[in-house]
């Protein structure tokens, strides 16, 4: 550039400069580290004192925690050896492949879903470098604080320095250099899994022979841990690539719908068919279960095809009401529970028929939904009623973290529709619905959860009529469902109130019936608004499953708190186990809350 020679050129260049800059905000110069410290931590005397005091407090806490964790007296082998007990309680060892198959299937679904929903965002490598710098620096600091032996100190210092080194390498990279957050995540998992094969974490195993024997030897972790986890990793990664491969080839909206349904159904399928391994009785199956299914599918389909005719009018409502009445009446007579349940479900489908009525394709679609729900219901009820082949002490075939997850899943899946119904009833025009729902919600919200749990686990089984019995797990799950439904209902009601009067009027003005208005216009908007409080509620529910320990169900917390410290070798290991349990809860709740933030962004909350 020789702008000294020609002024006109200078002016010309200036103009270009202005025109290119005009669309962008002016750049703010980055603060130097000293300036940053001054502006953010030592801006005045009071803040300086606060900074010094809180830094000291944080350092003390870290030192205390580290000296607890790395104290040679800690029995971390108690947690490591009993990992299987913590996760699944006494699930039979020779059937353990079922657990891995189930987990593998869920990871498979996860991989495919991540691909279809195009999850993950691009992360600048320089940002990753900054993170690594911070992590490495923290490790260095913590190592110097912790009361390690000299050897351990040196190892940790090397680790910290290594991470800082990588951070320093990545940090100055240009902001164009970016990788997907998924690549980053799978890289981290890959490192963790490789370390299972290399790093001598210690070989812990619990041999459940006639006299249980606990082994804790030095070396890498047991083959029964590292091999399955490696396979799980491969499954997850390869299903992601499978997903990216097939998503181009098939209709995306449809496959997304299919994936969502599989997410709802597969836990049931895995739990009751894979894990529980029911011992189906072929005779009973062909003499009772299949005939019942066929009867309901044929009669129901014919009925629903007729009821969804656009011009059915009042006749349809009368008939639906009659079926509902019959459904309730079946409880007065001795008969199979499955018949009662199916009659009630059919009645609800019949009542909803006018809302979804239409031309032939719409009617056939509605009938298909009915048959699909029937298949799932019949199969589920049959599976639950069939004895399990998994021989396990105690009255349920699985425990530990698995039962925590299971009860959480059932609670969420069933409490959500119940909560929506309660919220709709509470805002309904009919005083009787409003009254029932309000009383229910206020009653449940006025009673501590633990009271409801104890009531259901102890009292409710006594109140049941003859011939009906409820396992403790089922009773407790119902307790959770009604409790969470009451709270969810209030969240949904908040959402319902946020839908403006204009929306109601617009829906009414085009002639929609009340249920069409609710289903197509009001609920979709209300639920979107209710996402943040509902996620909060879901996280709270997950943590509340810890209360299961108090009523003596062998959940995650109970095993950590009472079962493991009861083993002769590991008496007094409660604190270690509790710390581990808190870590697991923390990781899961934190990721749920992060995921919900992404979902909020996706549905455009606060934008549209």
């Amino acid at each position, binding site marked *: 550039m020789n702008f000294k020679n020609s002024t006109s050129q200078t002016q010309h260049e200036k103009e270009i400069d202005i025109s290119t800059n005009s669309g962008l905000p002016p750049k703010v110069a980055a603060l130097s580290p000293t300036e940053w410290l001054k502006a953010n931590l030592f801006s005045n005397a009071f803040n300086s004192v606060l900074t010094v005091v809180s830094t000291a407090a944080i350092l003390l806490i870290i030192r205390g925690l580290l000296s607890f964790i790395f104290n040679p007296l800690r029995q971390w082998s108690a947690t490591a050896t009993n990992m299987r007990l913590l996760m699944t309680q006494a699930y039979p060892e020779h059937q353990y492949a079922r657990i891995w198959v189930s987990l593998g299937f869920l990871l498979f679904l996860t991989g495919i879903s991540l691909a279809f929903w195009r999850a993950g965002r691009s992360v600048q490598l320089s940002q990753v470098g900054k993170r690594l710098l911070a992590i490495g620096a923290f490790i260095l600091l913590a190592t110097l604080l912790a009361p390690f032996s000299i050897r351990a100190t040196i190892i940790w210092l090397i680790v910290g320095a290594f991470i800082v080194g990588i951070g320093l390498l990545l940090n100055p990279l240009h902001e164009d250099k970016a990788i997907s957050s998924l690549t980053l995540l799978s890289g981290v998992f890959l490192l963790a899994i490789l370390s299972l094969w290399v790093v001598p974490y210690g070989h812990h195993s619990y041999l459940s022979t006639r006299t249980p024997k606990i082994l804790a030897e030095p070396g890498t972790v047991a083959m029964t841990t590292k091999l399955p986890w490696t396979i799980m990793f491969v499954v997850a990664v390869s299903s992601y690539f499978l997903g990216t491969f097939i998503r181009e080839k098939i209709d995306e909206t449809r496959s997304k719908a299919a994936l969502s349904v599989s997410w709802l159904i597969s836990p049931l399928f895995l739990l009751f068919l894979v894990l529980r391994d029911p011992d189906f009785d072929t005779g009973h199956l062909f003499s009772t279960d299949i005939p019942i299914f066929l009867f309901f599918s044929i009669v129901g389909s014919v009925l629903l095809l007729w009821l969804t005719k656009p011009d059915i009018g009042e006749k349809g409502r009368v008939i639906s009401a009659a079926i509902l009445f019959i459904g309730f009446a079946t409880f007065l007579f001795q008969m199979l529970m499955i018949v009662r349940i199916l009659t009630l479900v059919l009645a609800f489908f019949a009542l909803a028929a006018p809302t979804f009525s239409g031309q032939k394709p719409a009617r056939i679609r509605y009938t298909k939904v009915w048959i699909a729900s029937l298949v799932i219901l019949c199969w589920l009820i049959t599976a639950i009623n069939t004895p399990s082949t998994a021989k396990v002490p105690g009255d349920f075939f699985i425990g530990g973290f698995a039962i925590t997850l299971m009860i959480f899943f059932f609670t969420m899946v069933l409490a959500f529709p119940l909560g929506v119904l309660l919220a709709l009833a509470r805002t309904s025009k009919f005083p009787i619905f409003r009254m029932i729902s309000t009383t229910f919600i206020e009653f449940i919200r006025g009673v501590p959860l633990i009271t409801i749990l104890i009531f259901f686990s102890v009292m409710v089984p006594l109140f049941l009529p003859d011939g009906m019995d409820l396992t403790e797990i089922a009773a407790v799950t119902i307790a959770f469902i009604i409790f969470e439904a009451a709270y969810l209902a209030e969240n949904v009601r908040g959402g319902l109130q946020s839908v403006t009067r*204009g929306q109601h009027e617009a*829906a*009414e003005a*085009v002639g*929609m019936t009340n249920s069409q208005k609710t289903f197509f216009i009001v609920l979709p908007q209300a639920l979107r608004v209710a996402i943040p409080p509902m996620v909060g509620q879901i996280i709270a529910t997950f943590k509340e499953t810890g209360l299961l320990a108090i009523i003596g169900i062998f959940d995650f917390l109970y095993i950590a708190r009472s079962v493991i410290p009861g083993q002769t070798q590991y008496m007094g290991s409660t604190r270690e186990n509790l710390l581990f349990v808190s870590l697991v809860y923390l990781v899961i709740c934190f990721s749920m809350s992060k995921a919900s933030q992404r979902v909020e962004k996706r549905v455009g909350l606060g934008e549209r």
Partner: protein
Amino acid sequence: MSENETKSSIREDRDLANAQDIIVCEGVSKWFGDFQALNNVTATIKEQEVVVVLGPSGSGKSTWIRCINRLEQHQEGRIMVDGVELSNDLRNIEKVRSEVGMVFQMFNLFPHLTVRDNISLAPIWVRKKPRAEAEEQASSLLERVGIPEQADKFPGQLSGGQQQRVAIARALAMEPKIMLFDEPTSALDPEMIKEVLDVMKELALSGMTMMVVTHEMGFAKEVADKIMFMEGGQIVETGTPEHFFTNPTEERTKLFLSQIL
């Protein structure tokens, strides 16, 4: 151009004197608490007629128009729409509402649905049309209101004028016999008012029965067959635009006109 001519010829071919009454109100009264919003309103509107309702704010114009598809319930008198009396019997309401299109001041589009779904939702679920047919109709209606390229956008991405035109298309998708407009341009920026009024004019030319509450005097002068002036919940004066704007009989009408013109 030729299209417009055929349409205006529809309008000129009308025989309003012999047309059937499609909306009949007899002695309609309504109170909000102690406040009387409508006081003994009696009027008839004939098929294919365009009626503009004028009046100062709070005069009951909106309340009246909202009574006609029963978004508000009148407490005294009778309202007959296309031969059906509006009463507490719920079965009539949905039938009447699907015959009467309504356009609101605040558009009230469904924000969670695309423009196309906004228009085709009611035909599919209320009129029970096959989806493909309803979506095709949505496209042709969007063409008619001049925004065919916006079909896949969400309402929040459109300008006010475009939203109001979508709202008109949504009402038209039900193939109504009557269109009610409740101050359709009051929430719009001035530069967008014309695009909405143009659509309404085109609709009037095509022979639609329309009842319009508005403050757009130009529109009233140009398009209306009949102007009704309301104040204090009553219809004070009814007449043709010429009569109304040049030679009103009532003092209150003169006062109103002197304030706005």
